[in-house]
Structure formats: structure tokens, C-alpha cells
């Protein structure tokens, strides 16, 4: 076997393997990527029912309901980003860190009658906020992390970006979140 054919073999092996890897990746990128959405995005443009998404926001206080279908425990709760709320249905055990009024990420699909979660994640840092939820809140103008902890979730639907500005101007005053409607 000449040097040339040996080199050819090597090149063919490399190109095949890396080509296969690239093709597999592109295929997977088009079908297996999971996008993060906020409740207001879901309201504006619901994702197709066969597409898995991560829905992030705060659990609306008082919205968690436990029920049973046969022996299967089913939890329902509302997730809000301050502009819209989406009801999530989840079969299974809610994670230890799940709390009303704190942030959550639900992985699942959007159906006509609500969001069906296959997994509920309540991983978070010391401020009880997953990074992506915090980003979404900051973007919508609901919360500026430099001025105190996030406002409680139940007040969000009535709260506007101007309120967040007010808190910013006077961080010592109680947040408008404290005044319940």
C-alpha cells in the first residue's frame, strides 16, 4: 500500500466520522433543541403541541391545587411573568425546592387546555431565581436585581414597568408588591 492510499484512508475516516457527527448534530439541533418561553410569549404565540418547551416564571401564590386521578397525583399551578399566567398540569412529585411565590421552570408541551409538564425544575441560587427566569423578568421591566429582592408573584399581574422604576428611584420604600389589590 502506498503512502498516498494510506493518507487517503486516513482522510476518508476523518471526513466520515466528523461529517457524521456534524450531520447528527444539525439533525438534532432542528428537532431536539428546547426553547425557553415566558407565559406572555405563550399567550401571544402558543408553541405547536408537539414541540417541547421550557416555561419559566413565578408560581402564583394560592394557585397550587392537588388532585387525584385514580391513584395518580396531579398538581395544577399557575406560572406568571407579570403579564400573563399559564396553568400548568403536572403528574408526579413536585421538587423539594418548589414553593408558591417562587420561580419555577416547567418542561413540557402546550395543549389547548393548558401546559402539560413532564418535568418541573426548581433549581435556583440564593435569590430563589433560576437564571433564565431572572433574565426574563429583567427584560420585561418587572424587577431590577440591584434594588432588592423580587416582588412577590401574586402582585405581578397588576404591576407595570413604571412601578419597577418607582422602586428603583426610592429603594427604601416598600415595594408596590406589598400593596395587594
Amino acid at each position, binding site marked *: 500500500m502506498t503512502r498516498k492510499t494510506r493518507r487517503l484512508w486516513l482522510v476518508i475516516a476523518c471526513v466520515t466520522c466528523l461529517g*457524521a457527527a456534524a450531520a447528527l448534530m444539525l439533525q438534532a439541533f432542528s428537532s*431536539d433543541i428546547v426553547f*425557553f418561553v415566558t407565559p406572555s410569549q405563550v399567550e401571544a404565540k402558543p408553541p405547536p403541541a408537539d414541540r417541547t418547551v421550557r416555561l419559566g416564571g413565578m408560581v402564583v401564590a394560592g394557585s397550587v391545587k*392537588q388532585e387525584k386521578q385514580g391513584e395518580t397525583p396531579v398538581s395544577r399551578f399557575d406560572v406568571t411573568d407579570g403579564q400573563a399566567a399559564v396553568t400548568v398540569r403536572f403528574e408526579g412529585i413536585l421538587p423539594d425546592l418548589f414553593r408558591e411565590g417562587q420561580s419555577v421552570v416547567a418542561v413540557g408541551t402546550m395543549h389547548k387546555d393548558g401546559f402539560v409538564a413532564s418535568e418541573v425544575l426548581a433549581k435556583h441560587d440564593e435569590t430563589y431565581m433560576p437564571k433564565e427566569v431572572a433574565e426574563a423578568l429583567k427584560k420585561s421591566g418587572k424587577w431590577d436585581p440591584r434594588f432588592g429582592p423580587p416582588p412577590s408573584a401574586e402582585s405581578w399581574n397588576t404591576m407595570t414597568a413604571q412601578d419597577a422604576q418607582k422602586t428603583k428611584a426610592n429603594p427604601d420604600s416598600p415595594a408596590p408588591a406589598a400593596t395587594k389589590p
Partner: protein
Amino acid sequence: MLSPELGHYALALACIFAAAQGVFPLIGAHRRDRRVMMLAPGLAIGQLIGLAVSFLCLIYAAVTNDFSVQNIAANSAVSKPLLYKITGVWGNHEGSVLLWALILGICGAAVAAFGRNLPTALRARVIAVLGLVAAGFELFCLTTSDPFARVWPAPMDGQGMNPLLQDPGLAFHPPILYTGYVGFAVPFAFAIAALMEGRVDAAWGRWVRPWAVAAWCFLTCGIALGSWWSYYVLGWGGYWFWDPVENASLIPWLTGTALVHSAIVVEKREGLKIWTVLLAIATFSFSLSGTFLVRSGILNSVHAFANDPARGIFILGLLAAVIGGSLALFAYRAPALTAGGLFAPVSREGALVLNNILLCSICAVVVTGTMYPPFMSLLFDRTISVGKPFFDATTIPLALPLFIFMGFGPMLPWKRAQLWPVLQRLWVAALLTALACAVAFYGVSGVLPALSCAVAVWIITASITDIVERIKLFRMPLAGSLQRARMLPRSIFGTALAHAGVGVTVLGLAAMSQAQHKIVDVPIGTTEHLAGYDWTLQKVEQEPGPNYTAMVATLEVRHNGKIVTVMHPSKRSFNSQNQTTTEVSIHTNLLSDLYGVLGDKHGTDAAPTYVLRLHYNPLAPWMWLGALIMALGGALSLSDRRMRVGAPRRARNASTSTVTAA
């Protein structure tokens, strides 16, 4: 006596030692001044002593509840059990950086102690490179994450540790994993030293290989331990989340595995030299960036301890210096290395090349999948995540050919081989695999799991066949075979064992895809049926613990009316931090795991119901057992006389042909 100030001072001293260790031996090697080069071992051992004293001081402060030390106050508490006071030292950012530096110090001292037969200049350069890296990390520790910082006034009690970390498995996971990560610093240092000398030869391959194999063994164990911890502590029923932190340990494992194999080609055939040097650099770079990008909070993860911009900038600077510097040196010096010959595609070295190509393709996929989400959010401001479906769809099709070639790779002779005789010798293995394939397609749902089962059987049977063929078992009297087995180098057994370990792990992974589970909300006394077992919830009681109260369930499991086990899954509420953790109960018979999780209490106090999650996980222990077998195989190879560190000598006198770096 072991005061935090002494620890701080010892750390500063170690940093100075490390800087000296990084500078003087290089000058000595450049000037070929033997006396200056001989400073290297002493400086390395001095650095290790400083780090050891510093680490002891931190442990002493933790054990004696010295809450005037900020790190202890933030992570410990009087009520914490003694074991976790000690292991809690490395359960936080500052302590883990110190542990990292300590292990790096141990590596440097190990090269100084066991590398006596290395050429003086090479040893001096290797120790110097380790010293430079260590100096960087000790400076990082001193300037941005000082574990000994005092707090005034000292609190009466600490804030306690995250209850999730209060577990014996996690106590030993970080040191083992870090030893794996840091261990790859030694092959890295050898690669840099070789680039400085402009010389890579068979002897270099021999010197590097034991260090790479040792680091690989630790990394394998560390990853398995981490996965096992996530299985039995987090209680979600799975074993691998494809979380950035887990991927950060898998990526260097993949390149490290490639390195362990390509170093064989350097040693036996003086080929793949430049590639092996690049792999050594890449493996350590991935170890570094993996751990520290995660720690800096760039990759969002549960494991991120702190998001401090000063630390992030220092870490990025350090990474840029280590990785950029070494790659620049590689680009500058690699053309000076003489390239090895090209190999015939069908030969042992050809198979090893294929192994490297496939492992690196898998690695590229994992890297892309891990880095894609942060890049997307950085560049396009879109939050996406990449999880199990992505990695399953991309890694399994690439891993399957790797596993198939793994079967006959070790049986191919060097230089030039013919495929047919090898395949003939493997007919028993092929037959068994075909049988397993038929059974798997009948009994296992899903094409990929069934194929994975078949290749797992193929790897195991082919590895056994390799040994059987080598000792001519069944073809000559047994005494003769045993005699041959005694003469066979241990590294051959090591290879077969490690490969069989991969097969065992793959079998476990494939079987785990068939796991069954059930989530129910039932009153006491109910019996559930899952996977042929009857699970009865008998009672739920409150029990106090040292710093928590627990709700403990009694779950009786029967199979065909006979009691298999009584499980006690529980839920703990910690007093200090208003946290709850779930304690999984697992019963294993090595062929399958019964896995019970207790959830919330629902209903009224008069008629309470409890949420239970029950899992049946077939062959689950095999995943970690396989990793242990792999590591044992590596250890067996290490005990081979031919692998013993420093045993070989260079063919020609090293100092005369040394090319000094500019």
C-alpha cells in the same frame, strides 16, 4: 497553633515556592546548568508542604468550629456531624480551589519523587510547568477567594451546609474527581516540556502513559461516583442529566481516553506524536475550563458556587494564559517535531487511530451541545437548552461503531494485519453477539437500546476471546495455558478488563432505558404493582435526626408473596435553613434496583395520603460497576513492569540532542 493566619501564610509561601519552581528549573534547563535544574524537586516538595499545612489549618478551623473564619461561618454549623465538617471544607468555592491546588502540588511532588530516571532537563521542565500552573491557581486563591478571611464580629453559629451535600458519597466525590482533572496536568506538563525540547520519541510516550492512565482511572471513578450520587441522593430516578457540570467532566474523559490510546502508538510505533501532544494539551485545557467556567457561573448550573465578576475575570485570564500559551507554543514548536509515518488502515495502530477519530467526534458533539446554549444567549439573546434527546440522538450513533471496532482492535497485530484471521478467531463472540441481538430485539423496546445491548455483549465476549486466544486456552493443556497466562504482560489483562468494563457499563445503560416507574398518591395500607413486585405502604412516622426531622415511610416489597425487602424512603426537613431533602431507599440485588421515593403528604390529618414514586431499574448497578472495572483495568495496566515510571531509558543520550526553546 494551626491558626487560620498560619494557613494563609503557608499558602502564600507555597505560592512563592511554586513561582520559583516555575522559573528556576526553566532557566537551568535553558542554560544546561545541572545545579539549577536540581532545584526543581526540592521546590516542588516545599510547595507541597506549604499547601498541606494550609489545608490542615482549614480543616482544623472547621473541626474546632472557628466561626471567625468567614468560609467556615458560611458553610458549617456546630450541629453538623464531624465527617461533614471535614468534607465540608471542599464543598464550597474557596475550599475546592485550595483542594485543587493541593492535588496539583501532590502531582508536582510525585513527578519529583518518581521521576528519578527521567533526563534531568526533561524532569526540570515538567516540574517547572506544573509550578507555573500551580502559582496561577494559588494566586487566584489568595487574591479572589481567600479561604482564611476572618469575619468580625464572629457569629455564634455558622449558617450550615446545603443539606444535599451532607452525604458520604459526595464527601469523596470531589477529591477523586479533582485528582482525575489535575492528574492530566502531568501529561500536559510533559507535552509542554517536549515542545520546549522539540523532541517527542518512544521513551516520551512511555513516560507519559502511566501518568495519563492514572489520571484517567481517577477521572473514571470520579465521574461514576458523581453519577451514582445524583442517582441515590437527588432522587429523580435518573443517573445522568447532561448538565453542563456533568459534561464538563465527560469532555476531558473522552479526550483523556483518546490520549491513553494514542500514547501507545507513540510508544510502540513512534507515530501520532504531534497529535498526542495536542491531545495532552486539550485534555488538561478541557479539565481546567470545565471546572472553572462552571465555577465562574458562565455556565448556569446547580454546581456554580458563586457569581463574582472579579473571580470570573481572573479565571478567564488564567485560562487564556494556560490554554492560549500552550497552544501558541504548540503552533510555534510542533512543526519542529518529526512527524511519524502513516499507518496501514488495517493494523493495531490503524485501529487506535480510528478510536481517536471516533472519540474526538463524540467529544466535539458533547462540546457543541454544551457550549451552544450559552453562545446563543450571548450572541442572539435567545434562551434555549439542550438535553438528553439531543445527546442521545448524536452520541449513540457515533459510539456504536466505536464499540464494534473496540472488539477486534486489540486483536489486530501491529504494522500490517489481515482482518479475516482476526474475524475467524472471533466467531464464538460473533455468534454470542448475534444471539444477544436476537434476544435484545425480542425483549427490549427501541432499536438503539437493543443494538447497544448487542454491542455490549460483543465487547465483553471479544475481550474474553482476546485473552483466551493469547493463552491458547482449550487448544493446549491447561497447565500450559496457565503458564502462558503468567507470562502475559499485565497490561494485556488490563486492556481486556477495561474494555469489558465498557461493555458492562453499556449493558447497564441500555437496560436502564427499559426502567419502569409509577407515581401514586395513596393512603396507608395500599398495595401497588410494578414490574412483578407488590409494594405495600405500611406506615409513615416522624423521626428526629441530628439537625433535621424526618418523615419515614415503611414500604414492604413482595415478589410472588415472598418478602423481598422492607424499604424506608424518607423526607427530611432541616431546621436551620428551611430546606427539605428526599432520602431515596434503594434495594439492589445487583441485577436490578428497586427504588422508592416518598413525596408530599396530602389529604386531612385524619385520612392522610402520601405521594410515592416507585422505580424498577434493571441492571442499574452495572453502570457504575463497569466504570469500576474500567478503572481496575487501568490500575492493572499501571502495575505492569513495562509501565513502571522511569523504567525505560532513552535510546540516545538525551542532553546532547536536546534542542532548547527560544
